Every structure is written in C-alpha cells, then in structure tokens.
C-alpha cells in the first residue's frame, strides 16, 4: 500500500459497510464491497453532500466494475490487520467484535458517523433487489454506461455525470412524499428504474 494515498474516509466506509451488511449478504466479495461503496457515494450526492466530502475517488475498470484504489488499500489493510477474514473462496467476513471496536475508535477521531447511514442504505438495497440487478443498474448509470460500452477504464463522477445523477434523483424525489430522511426507498426506486429500463416491463423490476 502506498501510505501517501491512504484515505481515512475510505477506511471508515469499508469498515462500516462490513459491519452493517445484513447477515444474508455475508460473506461479501471484493467487488461487492466496491459496488456498495460506489452506490453509497451516489446516495451521498443524492443527499446533497459535496463530492469533495467523499475523500476518495472511483474509476470504472475495463471489465466494467466501479472500483476505488483507496478503498482497495483500506480493504487490504483491514485484511492484514485481521479485522476481515477471507474464506476459501476469497469472500470476506468481518471479524466481530474487533471490527466494531475499530469503528468506535474511528468515530472518536473523526466525524464520520453521518456517512454510516448512506453506506448502510447501500447494502440494504441488496435486501430489496438481487445484487446482480443492482450491479446491472449501477453499470447503466451516468458515467458507467458510456465507459463500459467503450471498454475503457475511466474516472467516475465527472461533472456531466454528476449533473445527470442529480437530474435523475430530482425525478425520483419529485414523486415521493416529503420524507427527506428516507434514504433507502428513493435509492431502491432509482435502481429499480434502471433495472426496468433494461427489461421494459413495468410489473417486474
């Protein structure tokens, strides 16, 4: 790991995703961690948080996955420190209660607790929708879709893509009641719209 690139935010988000993931989503694969992290970052934008608050960046890989180098460094650190266990198939299982204690320690150092709800909502989306559908929906979202079509590695969250994401979220928000605290339901509807877009069937998302 390159120490100069270490992102406390990425480390904190990796820990919170693994702590809060519903038991049915564990063990988690590496790319699922990056997917939930990227989705949580989109939800952060939807909540009006500045992109700069994220603290780390993403690319779409040539294979079409959202990926963050800083998050991967954080994940590797968690594995090497024994807070994440890796099973025979390479999937991750958080080690309780040690990882929970680590998170509580992080909260005393930084004001990161507000982020937790966003990444928690990202994993909760996978209770309402199959993870394969979420992966597909995210792959069709602004920034991802064009890069995947070209088979290019490229940066995510460029200004035009962020603007398109805001536009889509405005549409979702406009048809929901004014329950501004609710992060999950708008997220699931945003994903569902993308899934339906691929299937063309209103009754089956």
């Amino acid at each position, binding site marked *: 790991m390159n120490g100069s690139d270490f992102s406390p935010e990425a480390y904190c988000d990796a820990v919170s995703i693994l702590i809060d993931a*519903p*038991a*049915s989503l564990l063990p988690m*694969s*590496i*790319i*699922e961690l990056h997917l939930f992290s990227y989705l949580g970052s989109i939800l952060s934008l939807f909540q009006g948080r500045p992109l700069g608050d994220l603290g780390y960046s993403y690319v779409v*890989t040539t*294979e*079409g*996955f959202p990926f963050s180098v800083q998050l991967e460094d954080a994940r590797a650190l968690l594995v090497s420190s024994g807070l994440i266990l890796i099973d025979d*198939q390479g999937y991750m299982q958080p080690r309780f209660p040690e990882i929970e204690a680590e998170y509580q320690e992080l909260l005393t150092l930084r004001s990161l607790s507000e982020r937790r709800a966003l990444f928690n909502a990202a994993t*909760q989306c996978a*209770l*309402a*929708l*199959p*993870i*394969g*559908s979420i*992966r*597909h929906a995210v*792959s069709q979202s602004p920034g991802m879709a064009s890069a*995947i079509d070209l088979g290019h590695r490229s940066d995510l969250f460029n200004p035009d893509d962020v603007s398109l994401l805001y536009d*889509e979220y405005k*549409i*979702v928000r*406009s*048809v*929901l*009641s004014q*329950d501004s*605290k*609710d992060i*999950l*339901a708008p997220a*699931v*509807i945003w994903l*569902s*719209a*993308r*899934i*339906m*877009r*691929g*299937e*063309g*069937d*209103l*009754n*089956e*998302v």
Partner: protein
Amino acid sequence: MKFNIENVQALVSSAYLVHVREAFGEVGEQCILEVLNVVKLIYQTCPPERLKATLTVVRGIASTPLSPVIEVFGSLSSAQSAQEVGALLLDVKDQHHIFIEAVSDGSFRLLMLAVDVDLKSLANLSVVYRFERNTEQILAKEYQGYMPKVSSCLVSNLAIPTQSSLEDAFKIYAKEMALESQCRILKDVWEGGVDGPRLVLKNKPESLMRDSLAHALRLLTRDTTVRPEQNTDETKPVDIRVEWFGSGASALIEIKWLGKAVAISRSDVPSATYTEYSLSRAQDGAKQLADYMDREVRHSNKSAPRGYLVVFDARRKGLKGAQDRLSKSDAQHFETVDLDFSPDYSAHREDFAPAIRMFMRPRESHFLA
C-alpha cells in the same frame, strides 16, 4: 423504460418499502428490512421450491420475545437462528401454513397451522411477508401488495442462486427458463406465442435469446459483467461476453438456434416460408467461435477467454409449418438427443467448453391425441 416522472410514479405505487414506511414510520422500515434479511437467510437453507404450502414471516412492531404477535394463533416453538428455522422447514412433511416471527432478541418463534389465518389482522401489528404459490406479498396496516419480480421465472427475488461457475448458471437457465420458455423475454420467440403450440420460432429469434440469457446470467453469476454484443458479421460471432473481476478471466458465448423459424413476415407473402437449422448450424457456430477465439488470443494481451456455444434446440420431428399438429413422440423427439459435433473442439482445446444444448419444449396441450 425512460427515466421520467410517469415511469418512476409507476414504480412508487408498487414500492412496498415506501408503503411500509408510510404505515409504521422508521420502525416499520427497520422491520421490513429485518423480515427481508430473515427470509433470505431462511431460503439459503430451505429454498422456496421446497415449501409445501405457505410461508409467512412477520416482525411485530411492538412485540417482545415474551409476547410475539403470532402467539394468539396457537402454541409456539422456538429457534435460535434463521438457519435453524430453514432446517426445520426442510423437514415439514404436511401441507401446513408456516408462520415465523422474528423477535427482538434475534431468536424466532414458529407456528404451523392446518388452516390459514387472516393476514390483515396480523398486519395491524406487524410487517408481514407471505410466500404463496410462487408469489410474494408484503402487508403493513392497510397496505397489501405483491413484491415485483426481477425475473418472472425465478420463484423469489429473495432466493436467487448465485453461481461461481458459468456452467452451473447455464444449467439453471436451461431448466428454469429455456425448457418451458418461461423467461419473459424468451417467451416472445414463438410464432403463436408462448401459450401456442411452440413449434415454430419467430423470424430472427436470436436477439431475444441473447437478451434472455444475458439477463439471466447477470442475476445468476457473482462478480461478473455480462455484456450482450452486436454481431456485425460471421467473423465476429460472439453474442455475449462475460468478464470476472480481478482474475482477468472472461468467457465468450456464441448462441445458435436449431429448428424452424418464420423466414419472412407473414403479412408480406400469402404463405409463410421458413428458415430451418439442424446440427450443421451448431457445427458452423462452433467453428466460427473457434476461429474468433484464435484471433482474439492473437490480438489481446489478456488471458485467453473460454468459449461457450449455447444451442437453443427447438427442433420438432416431421414439422412442416406453424399450423401443423404433431404427436407427442414427434414433438418431443429431440428432447434427449444430444448434439454430436465433428470436430468437437472441446475435446482438444482447453479454451473451448462442451456445447450447452437447451431444449425448448412444445406445448403438450397442442399434441395430436
């Protein structure tokens, strides 16, 4: 679907998360999430196909471990984990209605009844999930709605088997989706519709087959990207490209269909003409794929992809046209007839998998008596 207000409104109307939150507030949202998680965990041990009657999973809004909401219906037993619940359900022999309540200490209360109960009364005090005859409902106070399915041919959104190998995903697709054309994309390939005789395919059915298989592989495989590709000519035959994260592994899938398809739109000519493909078409597909993979390896620094030929087999013995009626033996003649490839690339190429044949059954109700 366009990303516009009308279409999103349609989604919101069936969005049970929204309705449960409206019914019970934030507590309701936590309860529905707990219910979904529990159901997923139960199905990891006892798939919904194994259930003999109904399954109802509830989370009481204000219940305690000492006063679960389902205790009014009968004498309860307990389990400590969802896995234990799943194991118990596997042993249920009779067609009982099964009720599970997740209580606040993380344990479960179980009840089996010969006669069903009024779910609406249960929903006054709890978030209710009901699985019944391959449908799933959510109830919360006055709200009662069906969970929209991601795929009409899968029993439950909450029990999608994700496969690490493409071969296993193909097996599930062949049995659950292709065999009876149950996938909502694939059902459109038949002349006369999926509820017709299923003897003749529509004109150029390959794009529907590709989209159906790609949709299924996205659901059934883990950590993959699945990309349908446009065939520009015979030198680039690949229909679907699958890539796995991290390993650099990839798969190229070429799709061929066998049987009879309408060649020209029926409105253009007084009598239909047909395109008919037999084993030689599959053999051609294998050769095209092998040639393409040779070129792909030469032009790429990545590790060699593995090639898969998927054959949708809609052959019917003695079929003359869409209006024919066949005997059962003729209609199903090819169901168990494997394809004999010569040369068989899978026998001497490690990057070429054995061909996967997916038979597409005709409708039995249209057979000659």
